[in-house]
């Protein structure tokens, strides 16, 4: 009970923002900026007017939302694993770093929409292509942070591991990974939000389902409340994912939080 109240207390800014938004948009009467109540009505219309036995979810909701979330999570997990692995290797191995770093810096500056043709060429269209686009677009924060984290491990820690002759694998899992973890988590968190963005981008071309496709569809129909409604769903989705992420982070980085606590 107490926890619920406390959580509610933390969310006080949300209704304030909503009310101000409603008032401002009602006053402005700009078609491009419908009031939140209109957006809510449109969202209800889009997703919650289905049959009762399907929890009122519409076809549009069942077709688009799970498909998108699946691709988003697949892309994020892949990017997290690959980015961390490659980042740690590049961080600890100056030679590899010298070979690959320019390519990394090069690749991450290319706007992902411009690379859609490349991924479509490799993977045609469909989930595989979309997941690849997501991975390509979001891997950089994890990779760069992991590399930086691995590179800047306190030398005393590294010396200790060397002295006791830890094997490569042990050094990786018992030293490099935990020491770089705070930075890796910073990168993962940025990537999680980027994953939503890339999910949308990957669904804009040659797609037939997904939240991004629905956004495109609403844009093509000049349905601005629909556009806004989709954006709201993206925001809510992002918020939920991020909260789950923070909960996981609190567990994994508990040593870090307490070790760095001041009184």
């Amino acid at each position, binding site marked *: 009970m107490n926890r619920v109240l406390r959580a509610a207390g933390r969310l006080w800014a949300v209704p304030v923002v909503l009310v101000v938004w409603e008032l401002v948009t009602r006053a402005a009467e700009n078609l*491009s900026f419908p009031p939140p109540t209109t957006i809510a009505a449109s969202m209800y219309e889009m997703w919650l007017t289905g049959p009762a036995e399907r929890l009122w979810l519409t076809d549009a909701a069942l077709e688009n939302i799970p498909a998108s979330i699946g691709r988003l999570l697949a892309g994020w997990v892949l990017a997290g694993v690959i980015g961390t692995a490659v980042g740690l290797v590049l961080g600890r191995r100056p030679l590899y770093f010298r070979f690959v770093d*320019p390519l990394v810096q090069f690749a991450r*500056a290319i706007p992902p929409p411009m*690379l859609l043709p490349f991924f479509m060429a490799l993977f045609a269209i469909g989930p595989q292509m979309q997941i690849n686009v997501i991975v390509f677009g979001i891997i950089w924060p994890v990779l760069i942070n992991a590399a*930086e984290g691995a590179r800047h491990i306190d030398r005393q820690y590294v010396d200790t591991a060397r002295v006791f002759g830890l094997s490569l694998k042990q050094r990786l899992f018992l030293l490099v990974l935990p020491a770089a973890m705070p*930075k890796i988590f910073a990168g993962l968190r940025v990537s999680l*939000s980027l994953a939503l963005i890339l999910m949308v981008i990957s669904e804009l071309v040659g797609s037939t389902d997904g939240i991004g496709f629905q956004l495109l569809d609403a844009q093509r129909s000049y349905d601005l409340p629909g556009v806004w409604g989709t954006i709201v769903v993206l925001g809510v989705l992002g*918020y939920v994912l991020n909260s789950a992420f923070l909960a996981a982070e609190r567990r994994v980085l508990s040593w870090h*939080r307490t070790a760095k606590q001041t009184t």
Partner: protein
Amino acid sequence: MIGRRLLDSKPLCGALGAAGLFCVLEATGRTGLISPIVFPLASTVLGRAAELATDADFLLDVVSTLGAWALGLLLTVMIAVPAGFVLGTLPRAETALRPVLEFLRPIPSLALIPLALALFSDRFDMKITLIVYAATWPVLMNTLYGLKDVDPLAKETLRSFGFGPLSVLWRVSLPSTAPFVATGVRLASAIALIVAISVELLAGGSDGIGVFLIEVGGSPDAMVYIIATAIWAGVIGLVTDSLFVLAERRIFRWHTARTEVV
């Protein structure tokens, strides 16, 4: 021995890596693994990229995009770093604002472009705003995580000498967070470039790399142009990142000297 010394050269290794990638891509096209109609040959693209380097229109577009990139990134740092410090040091502010921030953060800047078009009467302002919006997050996140990483004993040292919270922030938290912030800025730099080009592409205008892309978009071999332009975007990213790394090395010698792999 000489081989070893050559391998110590970063530009050389980078060039070798790029050449390797080029060969792989060219081979996939030449062997028909990927039809050149579906995706152009690496050599075709490289040729076009070289032509672009002498195309005055394109160069003007590049300059225009870089201008927006630089201004956007500057504003980002000026906004995100102080914001990170406020949120990182005032837990109450952080808990109050977190829901709103976490809600805003994942909203794709690209999805906001149609709405931004309807809001801004000036394209440049819109471009800068969207750059700042998108580039703020990595800087803000890295600042927050950096603040958590500050050695508490370093802070206590200053506190014990009677320095107030602001001094501790300025003299300990800021310098020891700075390397984290720098990583965030490097991440943001690429994102700023991406957003600048994407906004130009979606919103149009009179110059910019994205506008160049619209102009070539009517061409049947638009894809060659687009990939060639992408190469220049990558090169710009590579060059700017190298400059950042160079600056980091000079500024954060205390950080690298104690930690970096030798």
